[in-house]
């Protein structure tokens, strides 16, 4: 499978800390790639560098085979790359429909739209459809997100990213704060999104979840990719070994 989104030789220093050290990354369309690594391995830095949230010192990022450079997260959004951040990045005083369409409001047709008037009912309808398609726990699109449960907030953040991503979806620890049922929902959502032909990148500490949904697992350690496994051929023990450095094999220096 040719890579839809890939990065080579990515490096980034913060003072004396080499957060990314010639890291490699690739994900193909219709594929779920899990990105795992111990704390400080560079997972979040890599995701930030790939999505326009962080400048890189060296290396190149290729999107659909050609080099691309994102200055802001918005640039990444424009080509269909969305991120579900660990902190969710929702506006608590706005409702779920308003959050979903924030920055991409649907405007009223004609002169009213030109004057800045929004089409709230259309946004609510579309948001409701998006939530129900994902089997989301959200029951109302007119309740402020701040008054929702953790699982509902999570599903708003995921639904928002899924709605706008049409090439690559990044999820940073999407199940960390969730219960059993909600976690299952998130994993199902990941599969649905992959089946639509998107590339999905999952960052997680939960090895069972990773093995359940991922097609491939890329292991980061000390800012570089130390191993890539096919999920079907690996085990929790092998992944933990690669994360901690107990066993180094497969593209050790790549």
């Amino acid at each position, binding site marked *: 499978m040719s890579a839809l989104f890939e990065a080579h030789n990515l490096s980034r220093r913060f003072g004396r800390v080499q957060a990314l050290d010639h890291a490699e990354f690739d994900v193909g369309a219709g594929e779920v790639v899990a990105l795992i690594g111990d704390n400080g391995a560079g997972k979040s830095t890599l995701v930030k560098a790939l999505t326009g949230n962080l400048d890189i010192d060296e290396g190149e990022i290729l999107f659909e085979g050609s080099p691309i450079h994102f200055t802001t997260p918005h640039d990444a959004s424009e080509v269909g790359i969305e991120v579900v*951040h660990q902190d969710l990045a929702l506006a608590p*005083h706005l409702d779920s429909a308003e959050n979903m369409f*924030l920055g991409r409001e649907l405007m009223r047709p004609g002169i009213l739209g030109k004057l800045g008037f929004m089409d709230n009912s259309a946004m609510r309808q579309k948001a*409701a459809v998006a939530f129900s398609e994902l089997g989301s726990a959200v029951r*109302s*699109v007119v*309740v402020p997100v701040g*008054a929702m449960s953790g699982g509902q907030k999570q599903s708003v953040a995921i639904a928002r990213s899924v709605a706008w991503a049409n090439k690559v979806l990044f999820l940073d620890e999407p199940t960390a704060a969730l219960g059993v049922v909600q976690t299952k929902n998130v994993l199902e959502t990941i599969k649905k999104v992959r089946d639509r032909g998107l590339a999905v990148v999952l960052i997680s500490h939960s090895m069972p979840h990773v093995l359940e949904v991922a097609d491939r697992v890329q292991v980061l350690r000390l800012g570089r990719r130390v191993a890539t496994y096919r999920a079907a051929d690996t085990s929790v023990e092998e992944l933990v070994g690669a994360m901690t450095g107990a066993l180094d094999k497969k593209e050790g220096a790549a």
Partner: protein
Amino acid sequence: MTTTSTPPQTIETTASHDGLLERIKSMQSVWILGVLVVIVAVFGALSPTTFLTAGNITNIAQNVSIWAVLAVGMTFVIITSGIDLSVGSVLVVSSVVAAKSMDAMGGQGWSTALIGLVLAVIVGLGWGILNGFLVAKAKVPPLIVTLGTLSVALGIAQIITGGLDIRAAPDVLQDNIGYGRLAGIPAITIIALIVVVVGGIVLHRTRFGRYTYAIGSNEVSARRVGINVDRKLIQIYALSGLLAGFAGILSLAQYGTTTIAGQSLTNLNVIAAVVIGGTSIFGGQGSMFGSMVGLFIPAVLQSGFVIIGVSPYWQTVAVGTILIAAVYVDQQRRAAATRGKGVSTA
């Protein structure tokens, strides 16, 4: 609520009749409106023949008109979790520049008045842009920026005038705007009402308003979705400055003179009104309607105390108390909402 699969119909897309009522009840501005109604009822009962007369009500409306114009901009600013302490000084410096220029031009006609209006608005806009630039680009906290411009603007007004008020409002301005009436309603009140209604529509119905809430609610997420937060903040402070400049010309029309020494508490009174009306100083929350209710409470108290013969100094005591009580209630509601109580059926 316990089913696991969710057909589309079960997601609420509009506030149903019941829900709407609940939503309204949960709004700070509605509780405060209740307080206002009670105050009016008490004064009305104590002094029905003087307090509840058309003349007195018109008088109250006229008294809040200029503050209402300032409160429109302040509501936008506070919703972004900012503050604008400079509105009173910007009003003064705008009216000084306008009065000085109109004086120099001479003439009591509309052309002079129009020049004054344009100058006042431009001066106000300039101060607003400066505030916004310092807040958004230089990243100086809004409290400090506007405390600084409060001082600088007032100082410049005093330098221009030597500290003496300028009595120079063209007759047309005073006769038509200051004392003029339309169907018995003061012209200045009608003008303020138009500003308030347009401000309310922009805040609650347009994308500009939505972004104002988003910035105050979570600035980082606003930036991540591609909102140009810096530019929006500059625009919002510019709006507040522009309205302060406009209030400057209205003030000239109403009083016939610049009010250099008379605006030192205007900023705090307007902020108090906006906050009493349910706009959160932490941002993300508030309404234009609430700010207007918050404006009327001090004005009604003032008028009522005078009429029933209580020392009007009690008004400031009462307003201060209501301010603290209103924010206390607001905090309690907020705490309840974070605990999730606000979700259940509301």
